[in-house]
């Protein structure tokens, strides 16, 4: 987006009025230079979620520095120097903020009911019921009843490693049967 020399001159004139406190001139000026500044920011900020924040920062800087415009000087260098500097400030601040964020490898698992009433889905219930008892119980105890490996192993009277093997086989069979069942629907 480009502005013609006459537009730049008219904005410089408006800036004089802005410095004398003319609200209407300021509103018009911001509405006219807004698309120019927004496009300037959008071309430089790759993270789409940050564009609005940076644009807002640019407008704040412009507002704070409005007294520094010398009316006998060209308007464009003043405007874009401020925009560029405020863009750099905003990016720098964001980078500092990001450095302080703690990145986690995995999101904590949230317990979510499979259906609205909190019960297992029909398909899953049927498939689970079809599993042999030796595989079904470890899955039920660890995933539905919330027992730990040790507790479940103790309740079934088997070793923890045997329980893990059975549970793993149970999940694999469950997944396979569930996919088959959904595939036939």
């Amino acid at each position, binding site marked *: 987006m480009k502005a013609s020399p006459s537009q730049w001159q008219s904005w410089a004139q408006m800036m004089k009025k802005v410095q004398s406190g003319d609200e209407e001139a300021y509103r018009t000026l*911001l509405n006219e230079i807004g698309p120019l500044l927004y496009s300037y920011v959008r071309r430089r900020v790759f993270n789409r979620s940050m564009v609005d924040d940076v644009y807002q920062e640019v407008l704040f800087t412009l507002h704070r520095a409005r007294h520094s415009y010398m009316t*006998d000087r060209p308007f464009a260098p003043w405007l874009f120097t401020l925009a560029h500097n405020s863009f750099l400030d905003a990016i720098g601040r964001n980078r500092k903020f990001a450095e302080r964020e703690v990145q986690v490898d995995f999101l904590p698992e949230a317990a979510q009911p499979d259906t609205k009433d909190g019960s297992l889905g029909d398909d899953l219930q049927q498939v689970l019921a079809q599993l042999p008892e030796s595989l079904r119980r470890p899955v039920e105890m660890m995933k539905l009843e919330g027992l730990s490996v040790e507790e479940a192993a103790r309740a079934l009277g088997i070793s923890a490693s045997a329980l893990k093997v059975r549970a793993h086989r149970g999940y694999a069979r469950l997944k396979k049967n569930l996919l088959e069942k959904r595939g036939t629907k």
Partner: protein
Amino acid sequence: MKRNKPRSKQRRGMPSIHQVMVERLSSGLRPVRAPYAIKVQWLLWLSSALVLGLLFFTKMPLRDDLKESLTTPAFDVMILFIFAAAALSGWGTIEASIPGEENKGKWKQKTAATLWGSAALIFLLFMPCNADNYLEHKTFMPCLLTVLVIGTVYWFLLSLIIRRNAPLNSRRMGVWTGLSAFLFGLGIITLHCGSQNLYHVLFEHFLPVLAFSWLMGWLGARWLSGWKRKPIS
């Protein structure tokens, strides 16, 4: 019934925040005073620097051999270079403190630094200097402190002038302000201290200009960026 046209409407392709910002910034807009022309600010700086210098000389005497020294062309050129560097650096600093004009100040700072270096070379090559024991020199340390005090006062004065212009790179501006201020400090100390000791003049007159200017960058980063933190009314 005729419906009133909304005062502000969403502009095509613009985010909703745009209209919110326009309304927020424009409502209750206060008038502001545009900065004085660069030349006016520079003359203000030079005249205040002159008055300050005269004030300093009411408290500290001129060097005893000033009359004889002024008859030496090398000394005259050295003094001329120092004050010219201070004045030029001040001009560049004021100019660079206005958004959009930063690059115009660069050559002036470079020239000021070159003039400072040339003045030091003139002292080394053309002035009658000796390399006696520096630690036994009677004016050990006070000159360094004097340059620091004078330069700091000058620094605050120039900072007051440029602070109004919205300097963008406050750390760099702090250093540049320091260069002009401590060059004035160097000029004043050269007119005050008549030491010919090589180490004394280098370590307490010339080199503090660079060291303190660099330090003033830290102060400038806080002091000169105040306008960026001004609350939006």
